[in-house]
């Protein structure tokens, strides 16, 4: 969804409510603003002013339209982009404390992951149609084990990289009002690698529902692997496999903790 289209929809939604609180809003509501824009600079400032003045209205308009109307691109992407930006800085700071043992840092990153990802939604997307076949108990177990698995792989993998910065360079609104936040790794072995985070807002905070590394989606990748497991086995086999992997991981980290 492009910014302009989102903006038009937002103004449409406002028009339908028949409200105009500021002169800017009034003009936008009449749809006549485009003709007045001569210089790009002026139009830029007006766009910023509009975005600022619309910000509180957009949420209302969205609620009024039952989520059918999408909000202005810039305002919608602001919060998730900020979240990724701050979290990246937080993680880089943890990684920089090299004097601390790896386990402590991994554990810290894991606890960040717990807050950051929407494991419930990710489990549903990863299992796709198979999700329907799960009993409530299986769902609870699956989400729990998948959460541990993801958090741990996320934590240990990040801990291997330490000289990099993360450049958050763009954000865009996707279908279903999801937002993609695009980042690039600067420096180190994976200089220039593209990592895009897809976020969805279902409760209060925005949460990550997918990580796309160089075009490879984590959700899609796990989905294809789990599908293979389910082709030959049951959902209980899959959960057992997850559990087994997590158990080995826990065991392994305990051992290294003893040795270290």
């Amino acid at each position, binding site marked *: 969804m492009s910014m302009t289209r989102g903006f038009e929809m937002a103004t449409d939604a406002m028009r339908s409510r028949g409200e105009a609180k500021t002169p800017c809003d009034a003009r936008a509501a009449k749809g006549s603003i485009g003709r007045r824009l001569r210089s790009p600079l002026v139009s830029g400032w007006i766009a910023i002013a509009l975005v600022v003045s619309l910000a509180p209205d957009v949420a209302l308009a969205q609620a009024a339209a039952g989520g059918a109307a999408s909000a202005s691109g810039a305002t919608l992407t602001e919060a998730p982009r900020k979240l990724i930006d701050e979290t990246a800085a937080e993680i880089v700071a943890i990684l920089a404390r090299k004097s601390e043992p790896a386990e402590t840092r991994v554990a810290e990153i894991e606890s960040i992951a717990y807050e950051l990802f929407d*494991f*419930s*939604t990710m*489990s*549903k*997307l990863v299992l*796709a*149609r198979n*999700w*329907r076949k799960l009993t*409530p108990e299986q*769902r*609870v177990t*699956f*989400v*729990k084990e998948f*959460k541990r*698995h993801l958090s741990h*792989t996320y934590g*240990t*993998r990040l801990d*291997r990289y330490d000289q990099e910065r993360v450049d958050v360079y*763009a954000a865009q609104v*996707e*279908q*279903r009002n*999801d937002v*993609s936040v*695009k980042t*690039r790794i600067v420096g180190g*072995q994976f*200089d*220039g690698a*593209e990592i*895009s985070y*897809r976020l969805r807002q279902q409760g209060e905070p925005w949460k990550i*529902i*997918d990580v*796309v590394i*160089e*075009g*490879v*989606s984590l*959700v*899609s*990748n*796990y*989905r*294809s*692997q*789990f*599908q*293979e*497991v389910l082709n030959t086995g049951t959902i209980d086999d*899959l959960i057992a*496999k997850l559990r087994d*992997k997590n158990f080995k991981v826990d065991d392994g980290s305990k051992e290294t903790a003893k040795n270290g």
Partner: protein
Amino acid sequence: MRRLGPLLALVGLLAAGVGCATPERPDPLEKVNRGIFAFNEGLDRYALEPVAKGWDFVVPGPVQDGIENFYRNLNMPIVIANEVLQAKPVRVVEDVARFFFNTTLGIGGFFDVATRVGIPDNDEDFGQTLGHWGVPPGPYLVVPILGPYTLRDGFGEIADTTAGAFAYMNFFWFDVVGLSNWETTGTSIGSYTFRLVNLRAIYLEEIASSRKDAFDYYAFVRNAYLSNRQARVLDATDTAAGVEEDLYEFDEEDDGDYEDYDVDPEDAPDEEGTEGAEAEDAESVDGAESVDDAGIRDGD
């Protein structure tokens, strides 16, 4: 006859696979592929990985990166040719500049100066050129020793390699030194192997942990390869362009069901008993809608 062998094999694969490879079913030759994949894995475990580990032990990381940079720079004329074929003038300019800077200031490509001054690192090959003009990837193929390809990208690789060999070996280097055809072929295979060992050394940790964490390593590699190639064809490695269509669809196409089934399992185990009122609420909702559930199940 020896030259016809691979060609016949390709034609056979084409006949067997290309007709039934679709985006929903990209791997019609899975059984054969899995066999070859297992063979390649064995080869890696007992030959390539140990050698790469030895190489990694002896050669410092920056030197490994330098060697890979050198090979990438050597391939730049092919990249540029493919950008011309895809009618991407901006990238052509960028990569001519990249090739120039890295060959001169970067001492034959060993140092990637271009990236440091902010010239983007584009990546094009003939497989992408074909994809750019609408050729579908065709079936997924695991090639002995060489690894994952699609029919399109395998063909692209042959074209690129041939063009590269033609450009470098016949025109400049080997004619001057006076090597025979066989010696030239031997040298290029040796050169390819050297690059492979060096590259394998760079990714020792990544491949080890991917293998360890994977639930089905074959599927892991296939999915990663196909999505990455698709994203590169679309010049969109920063999105899930390759798989976007159905990936996030689930909740919408099963909307009613999805809501009914949402028991929020994430919080359930931790907060049992502390939310009596909410639990009652949830139960009554479930009760009211279980009829719908049943109806939908019958429908299936």
